[in-house]
């Protein structure tokens, strides 16, 4: 069993590879399109605009019982969705990750475990742009954010470790089980509804509320919203438990990946 923080050391050791591959992946997304880099900004802008129009103007929905501004629903929805997108973008690609990079498996001695890290960092870039757009809208709607916003990076951190761990697991199993890739395309829409994205956790009646907390996304989404709109934030128990569990999941994923890695070349 590797050292529980081995994956952090490894990430640092291979930082040059990770940086090059991540930059390359980010660049390649909109390469060749006319608007190029603008798409990074345009995409979240358009999405946020459409959510605002549909949910705040057409449906006139209010967030739970404590809705204040009309714009709030769209902002809260967008915050949750941005978090989910980070995870879903990664888990959809992870199962095929190794199979798509056969060269790195068979031709050279490549630190394969950096591939999921690159996947996460590339997704993180999109995430960061979306968050920036969200913050700008937030400033326009609410003015200066509450001081609790400083806990935002901390609130998100468990999601990164969690995503990374899941990616390592999916990437290593995906080599042997082609079905995982199909499974993920089914799981992502399900996740959209079983995570508190379109509704606050408080909207769920008590006996089911525990169940929804089994989904680690719930506490992370809630904590993120808390840091923007006020609430218990990182002092809430569900988030603390998730935060404690997420390094374990990352470690488990890393260990599994390393265990399976030696047989990748035999299968591909």
């Amino acid at each position, binding site marked *: 069993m590797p050292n529980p923080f081995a994956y952090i050391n490894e990430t640092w050791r291979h930082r*040059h590879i990770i940086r090059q591959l991540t930059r390359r992946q980010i660049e390649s997304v909109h390469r060749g399109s006319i608007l190029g880099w603008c798409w990074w900004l345009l995409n979240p802008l358009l999405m946020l605009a459409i959510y605002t129009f549909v949910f705040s103007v057409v449906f006139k929905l209010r967030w739970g019982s404590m809705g204040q501004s009309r714009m709030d629903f769209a902002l809260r929805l967008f915050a949750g969705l941005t978090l989910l997108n980070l995870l879903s973008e990664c888990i959809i690609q992870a199962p095929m990750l190794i199979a798509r990079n056969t060269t790195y498996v*068979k*031709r050279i*001695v490549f*630190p394969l475990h950096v591939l999921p890290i690159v996947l996460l960092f590339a997704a993180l870039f999109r995430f960061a742009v979306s968050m920036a757009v969200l913050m700008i809208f937030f400033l326009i709607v609410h003015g200066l954010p509450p001081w609790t916003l400083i806990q935002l990076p901390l609130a998100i951190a468990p999601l990164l470790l969690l995503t990374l761990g899941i990616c390592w697991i999916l990437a290593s199993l995906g080599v042997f089980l082609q079905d995982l890739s199909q499974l993920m395309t089914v799981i992502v829409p399900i996740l959209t509804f079983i995570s508190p994205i379109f509704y606050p956790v408080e909207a769920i009646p008590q006996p089911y509320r525990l169940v929804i907390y089994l989904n680690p996304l719930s506490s992370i989404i809630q904590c993120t919203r808390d840091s923007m709109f006020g609430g218990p934030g990182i002092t809430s128990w569900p988030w603390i438990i998730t935060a404690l569990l997420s390094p374990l999941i990352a470690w488990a994923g890393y260990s599994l990946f390393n265990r399976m890695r*030696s*047989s990748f070349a035999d299968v591909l």
Partner: protein
Amino acid sequence: MAEITPPTTPKEADLQPLDTPPAVTSPPPGLAPAQVCVEHVSKSYRMWSSPAARIKEPLLKRLSTPAGVTPWNGWIQRRRQGLYQDHLVLNDVSFEVKRGQAFAIIGRNGSGKSTLLQIIAGTLTPTAGKVEYHGRLTALLELGSGFNPEFTGRENVFLNAAVLGVDPKHARERFDDIAGFADIGDYIEQPVKTYSSGMQMRLAFAVQIMLDPDVLIVDEALAVGDIFFQQKCYAHLRAMLDRGVTVIFVSHDLITVQEFCSQALVLNRGNPVFLGPATEAVMKFNQLVRQPGRASLSLSRPAGRAKTTERESFPLPEDGWSDTSDRTPTVTSGHVRVERVLICDESLQPRNIFEQGETAVIFIEYRTNETLENPSSGFTVRNGKNLAVHAKHACQTGATLPSTVPAGATVIFRHELVVGLACGQYTIDCGLISIPADCYSGDRIIADKFDQFHIREVQYEGLLELLIVPRHHYQGHPMTHFGYVDLPGSVKIMLRQENEP
């Protein structure tokens, strides 16, 4: 068969080159320590009955206990059966390569050469045994190794450098050298998928050698480059050897192996057959090629069974014959087949490596099913490019053909050949024609009828192999001639001095 641990056992920790410091480790001066050490490496592939079996087997294995301990053990063992089959592709290979040594691995296709190289390079994990090496190892495995086809040449260079643990600053310094050596012009800024195979190889080779490896592995890749690039590569490889870089390579070009490498390993179906000086290894390899599968021959033929009317008598070598009864002829009338063949020198020592200009003797034994008229045996020598360099029939040599050979008889032809050929590998096709009696009188062919009436009875491709090597001490010149063949000829010289006015 050796006890095999399951392939899933993680052993790659020993093989991660990046675990070694990227800086060049210099061994203590005066010593020539083993730079690469391969110890009892075996590789077996597990063929799984289904993709799911891969996951199922380790789980069942976890659950299984020694027999009789748990009641469900028998059930588990039954479920495990048939989930996989092991195929041994490398069997207990061990060798050492010293600093500055060039080492070759030779063997026929499918003998496990590339698998072994991949294990040394660390892209495959051995099932048993281990590989150790010091310093930085770069490998050129197959074409365009390690290039992402979507990335530009430049991006791939830096990525490969990062993978090899080269500092980005150092990689930037070497970039011009790499681009210069690859010499692919503006293509360096294009995605690698637009490259020709030659360009890919050039860039791959440039990257591998310019990033200052201590061990370089080359798998057959150089064959793709044009002759000028190959020469450039070999010149560079030699310079690297002089600097103390260790080179391990696989090649089918036996001449290169002999010239370039000091030591070699011969593999046959995954088994190490010979380890030693490259020249001997090449000979061993050639013997191996000549005797495919079944070792010597099933020569329990009753002597003098049919009344062989021997027209001529000559001594026959005792062993070294290749049984060809299982070979399929490319042309056959069904009247005759080749039973066995042999190539040897004038003293009847079987061998198929000859120096330029030596005399080779080829024995071809035919067995008839029908009566044949004036049978004439012949052979064709083909070079590596399948060009027929020389082809000659017995009837073209002035030899007297037996006028009739009855069914069930054995005819042995002894061909003698002065191998005035360019150095290289050759194959020899053998065949027999028969000439109707009215086209052949005594010892010569009635020329105008020959083309029309000779019958191609049987013909085989590549029955024998021949390797021509440079002649040692041939009048101070390493080669007897240039070009494909050494045609008989002589030179006379007259010096004529004009009287000065």
